[in-house]
């Protein structure tokens, strides 16, 4: 509901703790404390279990007969021990319940505190004044319930704390990527300084095998840098002067110097950490329903427990009060608001973390849920499916050798500023062709170029230009048509008034686009391509990559309208674009995927940012979203099913049918098990790996 707020500026922490270590310390301390409490409760629990029913074991039964003073004395000792367990191992339930009560709220602590407290009170009253009860079967004690329930629930909490720590592992890994030191040049001297002391503008040296400390721009030297930890791309990226480098990535074999541009909280890594943390703390839309339910859940369980007590007291078999107490206590204990509350946040935290590991930044739970349900994805052609840079693809020479044609064409084009020209010149230079100087260069917009090279007149352009110059193109018209049909831009070349050949330039398809589009279709998503190109070129590319639907001749300002058109067909639409020019279309789409450039991760308009430029990221993002939402649904179904089966059983619906009444001990076991199951299921997501996409 962003309408309720605007410009929600994050002042950030008043104090800025290192989130990773703080969190790690917190959860480990909590875990150790809970484990100590568990051991104490378990140590008291074992003898308490046996001594509560001494007549089950013949030896003990003889020594501690029912009603004997000796048994009474043992039970008094047990009562004291049970109180110690409540006070130590169960302290968080009572303090939590009390604090919640002061806010007129109830939570899991309230239920456990009530359940164990009632069992202890009932036992103590029965022990202190058996005369209050009509017969001796009423005066059994339930100290075992108090102690064992506390032990089991505390153990469950401890396991949960441990597993929760694991679910935020991704953040810790990310923070762990940060380099500790940097080698900078100050006043002409090379110094190793802690990374916190690097300032923007510093000259930083990177040696082979070094971790790049902060974001910057290469000044001199070349190398290949392993950026997989940030972008998810496994192949090292070549770096030369002018290229951007990302802090926390790993230099391979070369050495270079770079100028630090972004340091501290401005670096790509810091932004990624912030984005991931925000997303992990956001909510999946499903959870809003769960929130409503859990708001009513705990008091509703109390009402059920009271109702159960009354029904069993009024209608149950003798001894009615004992049954009524058992049913009320079991009902309080078996309810697990925790499983309900944890079902979505646990999966979301793990799923968003998994995305970050693969170079995919999911902004929120909303984005994640929407991405899991997309019907169609619109891909911007230029820069997304293709490299966005034209390259020379074909040379058709008639008569003169191919290299001669290229040399002539490149010589003329060198004087031109057209982007297509650069593609031709680049290939000529790659082949080490010496380009002769040109005279009387003339650019004819919309037609082509002409110039004098080594005394010969070279014309390069479309058919209209050649016809104007009186040159017959018919012998190559067939090739021209074929190349145009392939989505390329062919140009005729003529030397001294005679047709010399064709050169074709095209924006080429990225290596993995075809495979990614196939994988998207495999996920049941319709793929559309959006481009400003004419329909024929667009369709040629579409055929090449296997796109179903072509939205051609779309002006940049109409991209958002095209997204809307598809949405009006009732489809949930994802838009993949570059984040800056495509911002309105990304915002219009149900899910906007921004193809990042590595360092620019906090793209506002995007719901999902793909740090690497590959389309495979879209596939992985959708797969992660689907896997996470599947996990959320499993957890929610499990938690709802557990509570809606467990509560009636605890209330004793099975008793009239098959004579089975759940014991509070079983309830405590089930309750702990259910919350641990939810957390463990969410942790299964950690093992998720993107599918290998075959190219």
């Amino acid at each position: 509901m962003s309408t309720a707020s605007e410009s929600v500026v994050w002042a950030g922490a008043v104090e800025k703790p290192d989130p990773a270590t703080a969190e790690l310390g917190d959860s480990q301390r909590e875990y150790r404390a809970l484990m100590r409490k568990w051991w104490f409760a378990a140590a008291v629990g074992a003898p308490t279990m046996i001594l509560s029913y001494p007549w089950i074991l013949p030896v003990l039964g003889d020594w501690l007969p029912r009603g004997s003073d000796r048994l009474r004395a043992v039970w008094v000792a047990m009562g004291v021990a049970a109180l110690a367990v409540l006070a130590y191992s169960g302290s968080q339930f009572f303090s939590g319940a009390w604090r919640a009560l002061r806010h007129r709220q109830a939570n899991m602590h309230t239920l456990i505190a009530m359940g164990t407290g009632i069992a202890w009170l009932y036992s103590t009253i029965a022990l202190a004044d058996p005369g209050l009860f009509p017969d001796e079967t009423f005066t059994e004690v339930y100290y075992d319930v108090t102690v064992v329930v506390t032990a089991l629930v505390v153990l469950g909490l401890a396991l949960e704390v441990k597993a929760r720590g694991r679910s935020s592992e991704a953040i810790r890994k990310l923070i762990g990527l940060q380099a500790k030191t940097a080698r900078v040049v100050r006043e002409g001297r090379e110094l190793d300084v802690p990374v916190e002391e690097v300032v923007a503008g510093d000259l930083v040296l990177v040696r082979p095998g070094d971790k790049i400390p902060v974001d910057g721009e290469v000044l001199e030297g070349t190398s290949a840098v392993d950026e997989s930890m940030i972008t998810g791309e496994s192949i090292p990226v070549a770096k030369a002067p002018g290229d951007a480098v990302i802090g926390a990535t790993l230099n391979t074999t070369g050495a270079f110097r770079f100028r630090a541009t972004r340091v501290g909280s401005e670096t790509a890594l810091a932004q990624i950490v912030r984005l991931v943390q925000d997303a992990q703390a956001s909510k999946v839309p499903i959870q809003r329903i769960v929130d409503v339910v859990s708001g009513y859940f705990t008091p509703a369980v109390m009402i059920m427990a009271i109702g159960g007590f009354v029904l069993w007291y009024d209608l149950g078999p003798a001894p009615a009060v004992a049954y009524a107490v058992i049913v009320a206590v079991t009902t309080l204990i078996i309810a697990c608001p925790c499983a309900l509350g944890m079902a979505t946040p646990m999966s979301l935290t793990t799923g968003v973390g998994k995305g970050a590991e693969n170079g995919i930044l999911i902004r929120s739970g909303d984005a994640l849920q929407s991405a899991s349900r997309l019907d169609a994805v619109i891909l911007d052609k230029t820069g997304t499916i293709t490299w966005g840079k034209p390259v020379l693809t074909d040379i058709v020479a008639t008569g003169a050798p191919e290299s001669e044609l290229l040399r002539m064409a490149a010589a003329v084009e060198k004087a031109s500023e057209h982007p297509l020209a650069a593609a031709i010149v680049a290939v000529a230079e790659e082949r080490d062709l010496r380009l002769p100087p040109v005279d009387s260069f003339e650019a004819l917009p919309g037609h082509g170029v002409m110039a004098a090279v080594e005394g010969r007149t070279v014309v390069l352009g479309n058919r209209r230009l050649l016809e104007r110059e009186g040159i017959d193109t018919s012998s190559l018209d067939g090739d021209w048509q074929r190349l145009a049909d392939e989505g390329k831009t062919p140009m005729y070349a003529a030397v001294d008034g005679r047709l010399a050949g064709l050169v074709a330039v095209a924006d080429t398809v990225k290596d993995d686009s075809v495979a990614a589009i196939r994988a998207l279709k495999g996920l049941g998503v319709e793929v559309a391509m959006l481009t400003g190109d004419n329909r024929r070129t667009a369709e040629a590319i579409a055929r090449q990559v296997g796109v179903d639907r072509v939205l051609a001749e779309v002006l940049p300002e109409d991209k958002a309208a095209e997204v809307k058109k598809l949405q009006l067909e009732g489809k949930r639409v994802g838009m993949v674009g570059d984040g800056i020019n495509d911002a309105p279309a990304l915002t219009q789409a149900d899910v906007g995927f921004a193809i990042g450039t590595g360092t620019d991760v906090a793209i506002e308009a995007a719901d999902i940012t793909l740090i690497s430029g590959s389309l495979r990221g879209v596939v992985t993002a959708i797969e992660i979203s689907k896997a996470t939402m599947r996990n959320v649904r499993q957890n929610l179904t499990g938690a709802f099913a557990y509570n809606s089966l467990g509560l009636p059983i605890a209330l004793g619906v099975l008793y009239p049918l098959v004579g089975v009444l759940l014991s509070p001990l079983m309830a405590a076991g089930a309750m702990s098990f259910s919350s641990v199951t939810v957390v463990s299921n969410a942790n299964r997501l950690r093992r998720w790996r993107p599918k290998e996409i075959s190219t």
Partner: protein
Amino acid sequence: MTPDQVAVTLAGLAAIALVVWFFWLKKEEGMRAMLTSSGYQEAMILVKGGYTPDTVVVARSTPVRLVFRREESSPCSEQVVFDAFEKSARLPEGKPVAIELMPTEPGSFPFTCQMGMLRGTLVVE
């Protein structure tokens, strides 16, 4: 029905009524955030088994700064989420953390822990 059954039934009904009244029929009064010299409406919120105060009243169209201080180790409360404002924060134990919001529409906006167990309300007038 025996007299003790009647008594237990009546007591049970009374207890149910008490639960309904105590947990569901509470009136939210809340604390009004103070306008500070920096132009923010500020309020401190203690996080300990719940939010104190759990209802903060603010005026619309003036920036709000809520400073949370968590004084417990239970991991339940380590996050606070303002769903309507798409804001959240991690609350390290014992350290004040500020969240700034700009309410533009009147209404009641809940803030909760990540699991929705602890609840508070930001009332925008």
